[in-house]
């Protein structure tokens, strides 16, 4: 009995529940209720009032205040995630609420606008909010799908081991290339000195390594082998093998970086757009009441 009980406990604690399913979709249901309520009240108001809806009506101000509070609270996730805590207000609950309440803003803010848009700071704030939500949605997709791809690519190796393997292959290449003549040694130098493992932002994001120096080196070794002989040929063959091994190791590390980049890239839109949104929101509120 005791053993079975212990097993159950272990299974429970090891069951992973994603932030999307947190609390039996508690926040998803809460958000849906919020949206449904907002739509119902809006529909009622739009049906009964002949006047156009918008931010200037009682409902408009209410939705606007709710939206602004939500935006500020959602932005506070950036502060909350840096504070370590546990208990009922876990970070997972925060993220779950962040995602679903963030999505509910599409409805709340759109109803707040009364479907009235223009070239002004008000629509700027709305547009930035949509940008933040869209990038956040990409983030949710990334967090839901990419960690598996990341894990599959990595296999049993750690990221440190991936880099170590490349470094080891570089040392072997240096060793193996010692007998080579200058032209062939230059090929190896191309790989040793010209290979950029990760590359810049866009290279990582798109996994674009078409001009990899190691690949160039491999392409040059083949013709060199055809004219080489003796010790030179033996060394070149070894170099050729090592270059190919390095290409594999590089490919794996770069895939890891590419997937990591996809996993992180949305934050490069989400975070700056959030700051821009907070600024535009402040401008929106101040300007509306300044020129009331």
């Amino acid at each position, binding site marked *: 009995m005791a053993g079975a009980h212990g097993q159950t406990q272990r299974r429970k604690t090891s069951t992973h529940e994603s932030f999307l399913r947190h609390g039996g979709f508690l926040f998803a249901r809460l958000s849906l209720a919020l949206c449904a309520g907002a739509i119902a009240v809006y529909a009622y*108001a739009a049906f*009964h009032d*002949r*006047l*156009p809806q*918008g*931010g*200037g*009506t*009682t409902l408009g*101000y209410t939705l606007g205040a709710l939206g602004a509070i939500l935006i500020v609270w959602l932005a506070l996730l950036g502060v909350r995630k840096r504070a370590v805590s546990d208990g009922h207000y876990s970070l997972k609950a925060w993220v779950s609420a962040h995602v679903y309440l963030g999505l509910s803003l599409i409805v709340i803010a759109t109803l707040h606008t009364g479907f*009235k848009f*223009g*070239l*002004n700071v*008000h629509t*700027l704030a709305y547009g930035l909010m949509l940008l933040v939500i869209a990038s956040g949605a990409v983030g949710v997709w990334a967090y839901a799908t990419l960690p598996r791809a990341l894990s599959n690519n990595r296999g049993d190796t*750690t*990221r*440190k081991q991936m*880099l*170590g393997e490349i*470094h080891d292959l*570089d040392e072997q290449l*240096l060793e193996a*290339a*010692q007998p*080579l*003549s*200058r032209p062939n040694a*230059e090929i*190896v*130098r191309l790989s*040793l000195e010209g290979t950029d*493992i*990760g590359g*810049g*932002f866009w290279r*990582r*994001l798109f996994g674009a390594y078409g001009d990899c120096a190691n690949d160039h080196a491999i392409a040059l070794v083949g013709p060199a082998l055809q004219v080489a002989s003796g010790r030179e040929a033996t060394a070149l063959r070894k170099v050729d093998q090592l270059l190919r091994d390095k290409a594999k190791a590089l490919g794996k*590390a770069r895939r890891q*970086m590419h997937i*990591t*980049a996809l996993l*992180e*890239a949305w934050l*490069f839109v989400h*975070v*700056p757009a*959030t*700051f*821009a949104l907070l*600024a*535009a929101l*402040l401008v929106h509120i*101040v*300007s509306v009441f*300044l*020129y*009331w």
Partner: protein
Amino acid sequence: MTQAITLRLITRQAGGGEIVRVRRIDWGEALIGRSPEADIHLPDLAVDMEHALLQVTGQGRVTVKTLTGEPFLVDGKTTSHVELEVVRGHVITFGDFNLLLGQGGEGDVAVTILKREEEPPATSASLFSLRATMFGRRKMAWTLGLVILTLCLLAPLISPALVGHARIHPDRQWSSGPLSKAHAFLEKDCQACHAQAFVSVRDQACLACHNAGGDAAKIDARVGREGSPFLPLLISDHAPHDLLLRAMPPPPTVRGRVAGMFETAMNHPSDRCASCHREHAVLPADPAAPKTADILRAGKPALVVVNDCAACHSRLKMRLPSTGLVDTPSWDRHPDFRPLVTVGFDGPQPRLQRVALSAHPQEVNGLTFSHRIHMDPTGGAARQGQVLGAARGYGAALTCQSCHRPDGAGFKPIEMERDCGACHSLAFAEVGGQLKTLRHHDMRNVAGVLRGALPPANPPVADPAVLRRALAPGGLCVDCHTVTPSAGPLGRQIAPVHIPERMLPWGDFNHAVPAHSGVGAGAAACADCHQARTSDRSQDLLIEGVATCRACHGKTEHETTAFAGAQCSECHSYHQPGESPRTGQDRLFTALGLPKGAKPRGLPTF
């Protein structure tokens, strides 16, 4: 004797510390290269197998020359052949290796071989994280946020102080939507309406241009300076503001009451001009809106009806006990007309009173007149018209227009000499074949002097005996005037006369529209509303009740060809009490008749 070369190979260890290996070459020259057989073995792929030769050429002197043509560095400078003094401590560089020359013991040339420090391999897992070289997330976030704050908030706030009358108006980005065509010229002057920061637009801002009680010339000049292509419509209060507030019913729904409390708390009252006339808003076209109403015409601010006419004009007495108005909850329950009737005179001034038609009011207008006699097609008046002939504007039986001459929406005031004088001659004597005619307008003066009411500065032009005859029963004046006894020298006097131009002061009836002037199918002719042909007495009030209006107004096209709207605005204007609203089309036609260069009042639209 050839000097020997002492080689000191220093290898740095990973954990710190160095290993030093020393070797002596006795023959005074050393081969430098990647080849394992080289005396100075430099395992660097940038170095050739047998790259260069170092030779001792004299006491403390060496030469270094390339064997393959590939250059090397001496003290950072590229060269292929060089002669050096070792005491100077030169550094020769091949690939990643530095050869430091120096004086060794026993007169040897010392060559210290050092591998340049190489960066440790990047094996940190953080290498996998995405980093932007140009802009980090945080830097980009702050930059964007501050740029928006600066361009969208600070720039508009400080711009009026900095740039004054600049062409760029940074606060236009705060506009929530374009202004209506009527106010489009104010697009660049937000503060024309938004006069006080954090205070909703007040009526003073609107009345600065639209107050009918203000100095119209000043207002027109001000609006002209702002760049308006037309003059503003001037409006009057519907009623005193405090009465209006008391007359307004509370919102009928809980939501409306909550909204009311909310608006009061937010200092955003709903009794402002801007509560109904919404700018920066496009109101969708309402197909149910009457064609004659001005409220939804293109180019005007959207009109939001906070309270419609019926809302206030229902149970008004409960909210405003002092009111004399009768409730009008709908067109069907529009009370019957209460025309302004002349019930008597206070001295020469008519005493006017509103009396319901149902009370069959009688007018005391000081005249004796029978419409029936004048309009009888076979009577004396008709005969007189034929005698007078077309040359004098008659020629046949009299019509309404023979006396009531159309003028705009109404008629010219009746003038005795023009409208009656052709038949009712005021000739009183014949001198030398010429008739001497009393001037009707002077009659009052004459009578006044004779009554002793006026000073004799204006002496009578007629013989008092003539006047006495005229005032006597059967006399000239008695034909048309009420004559009463008087203590004056003539013994009688003409009672004051008052012919009202309008009997319905709060409703605007336009006689000129085709439907009211007998033009078109089903249109009303004069006789449809005025039973003049059967009226024998001038006391008869010749207007019909509201039921006559309902024959067309409020009917559908299936009921009558002369169907017309039943909106309050057909006859009543909120801002011009007593007039019906003028449409943009009305203003357009008025504008077409204006002299060149003159600005129309109000926005002319179709």
